[in-house]
């Protein structure tokens, strides 16, 4: 069994990363499900990561409490900025959340307690595989329940036509805020988990590129189901490992994949409903 041990020792971080990325992709799925493009999830992840790391390093909180804080603090921030921001729609919201993310990054960069650009190191390695698994399972179950409920239907109706949804008696603003805050919570917990298996965090991990990475995972996998974002997270986490042979041109491949998926697979890599519809309508996509 030595090879198996070796295998696991080599790839456990990779597996952990898949789990954390899946959580992140699900966090953005929530806002996308309401038709909101929020680029703030990387910032929420960062807030969760910093809060949890500081509580571990300086206050010595137990890990469970640390993780809870990693979810609660971003949620509060999301609540505060969400109320004014979510009135915006489409690209304006995307840009406002992008600006918010930059502001968060700059604040973290200039604070004493966060270690500035040098970040925080020596974070205890508290995250175990089963933590990630349990939180991911809990999240998926919760979201699956949500999706099949009045809330999930409301999200979908808002995504399709928020005016019509509001006239069906749905409080659009509250649902959007709920999705935004819940997304921030999940992203924050993901950040807390990530900080506690990588030993080290720094502001550069939570910038625009990372927001785009998270978005790409969800879009690539398809946001028509919960499996989609997780599939996207898995593929995009493994892809760099599988594409090692491409060396300098790996980024080119990533970019092309993103374009191709948007062009030819608008619903992500696999969308059962769409494929069913494809047959039902005799090939008219």
């Amino acid at each position, binding site marked *: 069994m030595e090879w198996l041990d070796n295998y696991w020792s080599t790839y456990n971080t990779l597996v952990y990363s898949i789990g954390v990325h899946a959580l992140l992709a699900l966090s953005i799925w929530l806002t996308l499900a309401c038709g909101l493009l929020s680029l703030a999830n990387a910032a929420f992840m960062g807030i969760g990561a910093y809060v949890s790391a500081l509580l571990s390093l300086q206050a010595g909180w137990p890990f469970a409490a640390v993780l809870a804080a990693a979810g609660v603090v971003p949620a509060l921030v999301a609540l505060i900025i969400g109320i004014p921001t979510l009135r915006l729609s489409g690209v304006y919201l995307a840009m406002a959340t992008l600006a918010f993310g930059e502001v968060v990054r700059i604040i973290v960069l200039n604070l004493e307690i966060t270690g500035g650009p040098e970040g925080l190191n020596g974070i205890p390695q508290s995250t175990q595989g089963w933590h990630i698994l349990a939180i991911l399972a809990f999240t998926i179950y919760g979201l699956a329940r949500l999706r099949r409920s009045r809330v999930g239907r409301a999200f979908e109706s808002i995504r399709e036509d928020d005016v019509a949804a509001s*006239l069906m008696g749905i409080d659009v603003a509250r649902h959007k805020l709920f999705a935004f805050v819940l997304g921030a919570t999940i992203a924050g917990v993901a950040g807390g988990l990530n900080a506690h298996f990588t030993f080290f965090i720094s502001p550069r991990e939570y910038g625009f590129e990372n927001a785009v990475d998270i978005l790409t995972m969800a879009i690539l996998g398809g946001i028509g189901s919960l499996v989609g974002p997780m599939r996207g997270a898995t593929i995009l986490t493994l892809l760099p490992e599988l594409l090692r042979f491409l060396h300098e041109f790996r980024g080119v491949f990533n970019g092309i994949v993103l374009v191709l998926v948007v062009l030819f697979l608008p619903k992500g890599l696999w969308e059962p409903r769409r494929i069913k519809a494809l047959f039902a309508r005799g090939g008219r996509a």
Partner: protein
Amino acid sequence: MLAISKLGKHFGGLSVLEDVSFDVPAGGIFGLIGPNGAGKTTVFNLITGLLKPSAGNISFEGRDLAGLAPHSVTRLGIARTFQNIRIFKEMTLLENVMIGMHQHLAYGPVALFLNSPACRAAEAEARQRALELLSWVRLDHRAEMLADNLSYGDQRKLEFARALATKPRLLLLDEPVAGMNPAEKTVLMEEIRNICQRGFGVFLIEHDMRFVMGLCDRVAVLNFGRIIAEGSPDEIRNNPDVIEAYLGREDEGQAS
């Protein structure tokens, strides 16, 4: 039931509605007619809270609607359809109708998460009710179909069922027969009568005179943002102002 008084709306310098007053009585079918661009849809948008009035007020069953968000207006018991059908195309018919029941489905997050019996029962009941509403408009056999695949006329009927799901006391129909052929119009007229007979108040706006005259109990006429006449279909038919302002051109419109 619905009282509109001295309602005015202007966009920038452009006045769309001025001093509009009329009452929609409880029960029966009320029609607001007028040529295109008279401001009919603006009236609906003001009632449902999509727009804020520049002057005057609107009250429903004695309650002032000023400043209410669209969803709050719906929760008071007013539902509407749209001239350019706005169903949720990527959802099934059943889901479309269940969206309308949103406010009436009460279960908390814990019940939802635990999938408690109460929650399951509420969902099952909503589903039953949605099927029933679909059967009213004879679409129940297509409940699991994506709404996008429906024909134009069926999409309108789905929109009716969805609006009824909010349990309204007053249903606002925005040009329900726009874009339909005479046969479809007749079918839809029947549906509207049915809805009315089930105890829903109906307030519709329309520019197809024949349709309105054959359907409504009471009619108001809007022209250039002002009410120029109100009364029974017969009174309206014979009102010289209406004939001059509207009917003359309506005939041309019908011919085209």
